[in-house]
């Protein structure tokens, strides 16, 4: 990738995105281009590893949040149920004592 053959010679171009379009930027030919290509390849490999690592981190974080949400849902249900059987009802999001019930 990045290498282009012109008149029997190989030239190295760096591709980059500018304003939603892919633009080729001339880097060079020969040894300088080889080194530049190797360096770009290394950067890509490193970025790929970083992306994978980040994806795993996010997945782990999402799993923790999901578990906490499920636990929270159950705790809320148990709280609401305890209140309901103790004579409370929900009025506009607030718990209020039902008329005529003793705690």
């Amino acid at each position, binding site marked *: 990738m990045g290498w282009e053959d012109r008149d029997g010679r190989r030239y190295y171009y760096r591709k980059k995105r500018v304003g939603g379009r892919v633009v080729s930027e001339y880097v060079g030919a020969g040894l300088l281009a080889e080194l530049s290509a190797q360096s770009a390849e290394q950067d890509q490999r490193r970025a790929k590893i970083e992306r994978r690592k*980040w994806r795993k981190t*996010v997945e*782990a*974080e999402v*799993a*923790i*949040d999901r*578990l*906490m949400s*499920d*636990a*929270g*849902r*159950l*705790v*809320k*249900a*148990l*709280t*609401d*149920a*305890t*209140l*309901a*059987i*103790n004579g*409370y*009802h*929900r*009025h506009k999001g607030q*718990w209020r004592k*039902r008329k005529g019930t003793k*705690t």
Partner: protein
Amino acid sequence: MNDQANLTPAKPAKLDEIDAFIAVLRRVECEKPKPEDVRELRRLLKSNETNWQLAGDMMQQAQRNALNSINFGKSKTLAIESIEEGMQHIRRQLSYATSPMLEKLLIEQVVTAWLRLSICEVKYSHNVSGESSIQQADYWDRALSASQRRYLRAIETLARVRRLKLPALQVNVAQSGAKQLNVASSAASSAALPAVPNDAPNAKGGDAIE
């Protein structure tokens, strides 16, 4: 957190039972619920299906996963010990040992939310000052805000329930491989929720929290 190795991880299949439980609950939440719905809810709440146990297990699993998500490096044992001491401190401050079962569960929720918030704070500062991208910094920023909201909500719920001063609830707690026990609230909760050290104060300390 000392008995971590003996704990059973929360089973996702149980979540269907929670949905069924919530469905009955929704019917009871109105001002004039049907007596049979109230009876059914009372039965579910006291049944040996141990929703209380499940909630405690899920909370502990979340705590374990949260602790495992940090890369402590060489000082892992020390860091985990200090975080666990922080968790125990909150339990003591909130009078975990002497609280009724529902409050114990809510205290555990506060502790879990505090743990999540503390870890998010560490990760946020580490990532914002380090070499992370704008996308990553933004992610941690949102995660931190969400965990702050969750922590405050947990504290508010506990405070609200304590203000109502509900009577103790008797619940059947079936322990795996053991005969079913029919116990009053505080005893039931010690089976359902993590153990706390014996040095917890006997007097109730209100809603104070650090």
